[in-house]
């Protein structure tokens, strides 16, 4: 789960990381009120969960409350990469002397949280990593020791931070690591961390990506979730205990197991088709889950054929076949189905399908066979 900039910054503030004064607004009038309260120039920032807000015109400077209202008027309701802006953050404008990058991320290879800093703040850090990797300084944190001050000093020295700001920087680095660990994050980023002309060090922007698996122990973070930015089909799938991702193609995929689901997408593409989705039924799925999954897949009217690929381990093929027949009874469709059932109770499952004698059902044996038949069926050819 991703947090909005204003949510991230409010968390930062609780951990002693300085942020500009400001508040959120959902109407131009509210934006004006915030600007009046702050006094002086402000920045009006769209709150959507995508990068590149500035380039898209979603971040504007306003010198007066009048201007703040106008800017909010422009930004609220605008679309940025398919997301509608419903909230803006109105922050005090800062006179920036220096922009720094500071972030924490999980390093899978070393199995540690890594803190990274760079003198190249305010730009895309992936870009810095690609072009000038030597400008990114990293320290790796032992989980039993936590971030030590000397490690923060290594970062400060590595990015050439002026000595008079070292104490502030160490405090912020420590706060950042605490946010990461206590909130169960996968990524915490301050970009840019700025030194203002009046020598304050503060987080001008903020990004937190949370570990979904740990949300159960953070009800207050769960409450921050903004479902309006989620794909409705993905939300429905999630509630049904399915793992689903909407893609652009024409072949719906219903598979058990994440690896097999990915491989099924790969093989569809290999034979010239485009997958319409990733869908992992999970282990031990019964009829109900299959019905829900098919409902979600078939609601996408770009789907021209559905490939059902089940390798029964804990999942029983006869249950999947029964679920399929139930679903077909409730959903009216003439989309062709290519079904491959292998593994636990596959003979029974295939028999159930054969007995039903449906005209838009094609059975397949191997994975390649199934993919080829699905690609042909989507093109309106019979394989």
């Amino acid at each position, binding site marked *: 789960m991703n947090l909005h900039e204003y949510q991230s910054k409010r968390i930062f503030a609780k951990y002693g990381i300085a942020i500009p004064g400001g508040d959120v607004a959902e109407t131009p009038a509210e934006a004006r009120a915030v600007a009046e309260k702050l006094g002086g120039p402000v920045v009006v920032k769209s709150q959507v969960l995508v990068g590149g807000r500035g380039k898209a015109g979603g971040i504007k400077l306003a010198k007066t409350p009048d201007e703040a209202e106008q800017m909010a008027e422009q930004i609220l309701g605008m679309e940025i990469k398919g997301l509608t802006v419903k909230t803006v953050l109105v922050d005090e404008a800062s006179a920036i002397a220096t922009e720094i990058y500071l972030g924490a991320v999980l390093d899978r290879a070393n199995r540690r949280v890594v803190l990274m800093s760079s003198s190249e703040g305010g730009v895309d850090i992936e870009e810095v990593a690609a072009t000038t990797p030597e400008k990114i300084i990293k320290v790796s944190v032992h989980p039993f020791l936590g971030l030590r001050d000397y490690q923060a000093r290594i970062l400060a020295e590595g990015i050439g931070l002026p000595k008079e700001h070292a104490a502030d920087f160490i405090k912020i680095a420590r706060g950042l690591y605490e946010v990461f660990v206590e909130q169960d994050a996968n990524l915490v980023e301050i970009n840019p961390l700025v030194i203002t002309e009046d020598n304050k060090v503060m987080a001008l922007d903020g990004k937190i990506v949370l570990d979904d698996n*740990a949300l159960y122990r953070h009800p207050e973070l769960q409450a921050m979730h903004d479902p309006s930015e989620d794909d409705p089909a993905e939300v429905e799938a999630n509630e049904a205990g399915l793992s689903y991702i909407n893609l652009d193609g024409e072949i719906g995929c219903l598979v058990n197991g994440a690896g097999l689901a990915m491989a099924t997408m790969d093989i569809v593409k290999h034979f010239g088709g485009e997958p319409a989705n*990733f869908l992992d039924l999970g282990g031990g799925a019964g009829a109900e889950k299959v019905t829900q999954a098919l409902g979600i897949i078939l609601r996408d009217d770009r789907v021209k054929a559905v490939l059902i690929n089940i390798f029964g*381990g804990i999942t029983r093929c006869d249950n999947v076949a029964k679920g399929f027949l139930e679903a077909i009874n409730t959903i009216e469709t003439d989309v062709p189905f290519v079904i491959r059932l292998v593994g636990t109770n596959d003979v029974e499952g295939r028999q159930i399908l054969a007995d039903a004698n449906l005209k838009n059902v094609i059975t397949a044996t191997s994975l390649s066979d199934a993919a080829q038949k699905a690609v042909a069926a989507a093109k309106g050819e019979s394989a």
Partner: protein
Amino acid sequence: MSILVNKDTKVVVHGITGRQGTFHTEQMLEYGTQVVAGIRPGKGGEWATRNVPIFDTARDAVEATGANTSFIIVPAAAAPDSIIEAADAGIELIVCITEHIPVLDMVKVRAYLDTMGARLVGPNCPGLITPGEAKVGIMAGHIHTPGNVGVVSKSGTLTYELVYALTARGIGQSSAVGIGGDPINGTNFLDILQMFEEDSGTEQIVMIGEIGGTDEQMAAQFIKDHMSKSVSAFIAGQTAPPGRRMGHAGAIISGGEGTAAEKMDALQAAGAQVAKIPDELADMVAANIS
């Protein structure tokens, strides 16, 4: 010969009284695995399915039964504790099936295990099997057959696909290990490749990887530097869109690290045979035999 588990393996099941725990205990016993104990705090002294004795703690179970392997199938919130408890009780091999464990919990668990010398397989994995001897996992036992192809994989169902195709061709497996698809796990490809290389009962190896992380690239380096046995590989997620999580928490590509193409190139350059589609894997293995 085989790796990690065999007919002498003595298993203690953590979470034996749960629905899944009961079912898989029965399945493992039917396959011939010695399940000697179960753990369910508060029910010590009682009996689980098939008269397996229940203990309150792993320490009690190990003392009373000589269990040397843990099979953990408890909820995600309890799993880190179970893993550490098993290690503290002197268990040498800990197999954790549980999925959705918070990643920072695993950072701590793994750091602790490394100080104890215990081996963890998983979490979020199907477990492992030595066909004809023992399975400590949730895979369907009947599709496996004893032989000398070593299998190591991040994906349960893709492993079943491969094993099924091998068995259908009359090709058996020495051991099949599911290492799981989480970003932090106990055992990676490199560890298992090393064991298969040293195992006299394994003649060639199949590895099934996934997008995300750099485990497969490290395996490639190991294959290049240290392996004499042939390795055939497949990487799932060649068409996955960047930045999206594909079911396995580890299967996410961001910042260009860990794409399928990178991994396939690294393995190819290291001398492994790389399949474009999973169906080709069994053919590659068969061709190596003839």
